[in-house]
């Protein structure tokens, strides 16, 4: 009943393609997060599911019905709008109960549900306020309450928590998860908050420029990004990327070489590849002796330190000329590396350090196409299986 399918859906505005040939198959009861850079088409996708925007091409299904041209009211969806859009002429109670009143629920039922929703979003006692007498976060919570009082087949939530503080957000997150479990409805959720996406969703759909990049469970997206874009987008701070080439010995770039057998991974030597490594997979070597293979050591100089409370981000310079460019977000910087270390680590700026990469978590991407080639050039010790078998069969 609540499965949502987009078939080759596109939406073109005058000169912009907001959504480009999107295929999406969301199962009944799934909790899907749409993530992607600003302007990538998330809201547009939501609107097409809700029926507020008619796709330029393609079909939308909800349940088994094609709903491409069905008006929103017949689609059985509830939506939290990114722009909140409270009814300015109604107080909070009327805003929240709007959808129920439309369906002629009886008064007590409405009251019960509104009370409950207000409790969930922690707005008890504010039911008689007008929207313009509330703070940004309070308004957003009204918008959430307005959606959750109903029992639709599909919930669409477009950044519902953007204006809430961390604590409330955690609270709302769990509330939404509970709701999801209780009602067993499909939830399609847009968020910019990685933690939200990671903790709440069954699957994450990563969108870029209107195109679906990957749709997979959170950890799969995190650990096995389908392409450079996903790899760079998921995870904060972003993955480190280094451009290089595959040589017979492995990966080679300006400052870092990683040796492996390209054949194991089924890559031909000479291919331009980009290596990716997450900050938390870069380890500080306290005792150099501990590193079995000396060639795996990387010497660097610490540059900027960013203490975050629960961890410290360390910007490493790999070469003399390197300069930490906090502005560069392309991610590819061959002479620097971001590392995260525990907050009690004894480290200072401009200190010579040695680091190693967790080889099981080194990602390789085809520089030209961006497609992932391999996630880990050596299987992690603990889950050690038969490294390279897949790659071999490919070769």
């Amino acid at each position, binding site marked *: 009943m609540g499965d949502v399918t987009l078939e080759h859906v596109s939406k073109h505005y005058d000169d912009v393609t907001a959504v480009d040939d999107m295929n999406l198959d969301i199962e009944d009861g799934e909790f899907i997060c749409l993530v992607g850079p600003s302007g990538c088409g998330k809201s547009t996708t939501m*609107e097409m599911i*809700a*029926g*507020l925007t008619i796709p330029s091409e393609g079909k939308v299904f909800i349940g088994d019905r094609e709903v491409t041209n069905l*008006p*929103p*009211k017949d689609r059985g*969806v*509830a*939506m939290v*709008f990114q*722009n909140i*859009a409270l*009814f*300015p*002429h*109604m107080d909070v109670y009327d805003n929240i109960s*709007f*959808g129920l*009143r*439309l*369906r002629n629920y009886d008064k007590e039922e409405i009251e019960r549900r509104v009370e409950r929703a207000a409790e969930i979003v922690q707005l008890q006692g504010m039911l008689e306020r007008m929207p313009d007498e509330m703070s940004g976060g309070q308004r957003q919570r009204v918008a959430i309450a*307005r959606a959750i009082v*109903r029992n639709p087949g599909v919930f*669409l939530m477009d950044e519902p928590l953007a204006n809430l503080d961390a604590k409330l957000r955690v609270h709302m997150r769990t509330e939404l998860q509970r709701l999801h479990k209780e009602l067993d409805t499909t939830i399609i959720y847009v968020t910019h908050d990685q933690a939200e996406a990671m903790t709440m969703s069954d699957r994450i759909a990563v969108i870029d420029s209107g195109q679906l990049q990957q749709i997979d469970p959170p950890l799969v997206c995190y650990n096995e990004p389908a392409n450079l874009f996903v790899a760079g987008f998921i995870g904060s701070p972003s993955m480190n990327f280094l451009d290089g080439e595959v040589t017979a010995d492995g990966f080679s770039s300006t400052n870092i070489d990683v040796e492996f057998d390209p054949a194991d991974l089924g890559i031909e030597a000479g291919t331009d590849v980009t290596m990716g490594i997450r900050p938390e997979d870069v380890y500080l070597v306290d005792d150099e002796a501990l590193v079995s293979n000396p060639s795996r050591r990387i010497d660097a100089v610490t540059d900027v330190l960013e203490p975050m409370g629960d961890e410290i981000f360390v910007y490493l310079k790999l070469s003399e000329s390197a300069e930490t460019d906090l502005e560069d977000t392309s991610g590819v910087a061959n002479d620097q590396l971001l590392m995260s270390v525990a907050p009690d680590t004894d480290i200072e700026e401009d200190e010579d350090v040695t680091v190693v990469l967790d080889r099981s978590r080194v990602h390789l991407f085809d520089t030209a196409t961006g497609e992932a080639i391999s996630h880990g050039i050596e299987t992690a010790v603990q889950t050690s299986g038969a490294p390279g078998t897949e790659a071999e069969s490919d070769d």
Partner: protein
Amino acid sequence: MESLSETQFAYLLLTPALVLLGVIAVYPLVSTFSMSLFADRLTGTARLGEFVGLQNYVDLFTGARNYALPSQFLPTFTSEFPFVTNIYSSALAVTLIFTVFSVLFETLIGFGQALILDQDFRGRRWVRVAIIIPWAVPIVIQGMIWYLMFQPNIGFLVGTSENPALLNQLGLIGTTPLRNTADALFLIIVADVWKTSAFMALLILAGMQSIDRSLYDVAKVAGASRWQQFKLITFPLILPTVLVAMLFRTIDAMRVYGIIQTMAGCQTVPSLSCLVVTTFNTPLYGTSATVAFVTAGIIAVVVSVYIVNFASEGI
């Protein structure tokens, strides 16, 4: 200027309006009010006779001044049902009837027109002009059109007793409708509705256009049908505009004169303004000023209905 308090600032910005209204409206009204305290005078150079205090007002309400008016001011009351006789010969009754019906129908039709104009369709700019344009017709011409349509042996909407037209057959109007108060009033209302619905439509349309469209998105997703969207979003949000439109239409309708004069004449369909203008032209300045002030007073009473509504709308 910015460092003025809100109150000072408010009054500063109101100054132009208050000065204009003070000189062009309040000052004349004070002067006219003083005229209403003097007796009429028909001969000699002076406009007015001796000072009589509120006698003009007393006379007007007791009917003692009816002789000076083209028709009675108040209806004649009796103790028997239906309590009011000759309702159509009383300016007050005629004016109220005209006001109630014309404002009612203008609002309804204006609403309908605004709803149409609010839609997006091909050629809508022409439809819009077409619907608005009656409002641009001078009253003289509006009067002429409707006068001629209902002029026997000229217009096609009335016939003769031997050869009645459709409206005659339906019993809506007689064969000389413009000389009969009831018929003429009816036709004047129709003519007024034709012309002035556009006024309502324009204002209501503007109100609709000012609504944030994203609210409709919310309502649609919440499951609102078109009717519900209208009832719950459009209507409450344009209500202030509608009330303003109705308020001013009511005030205008209470002062109706031009269309009566051009279609049927003040003798046939006396309105309050008819009394004012006729006595003004006669010229019975004291009486005229009195009727003008009484008219304003009556309008104030009628309008208070709206004021209460406004207050509850928080305007």
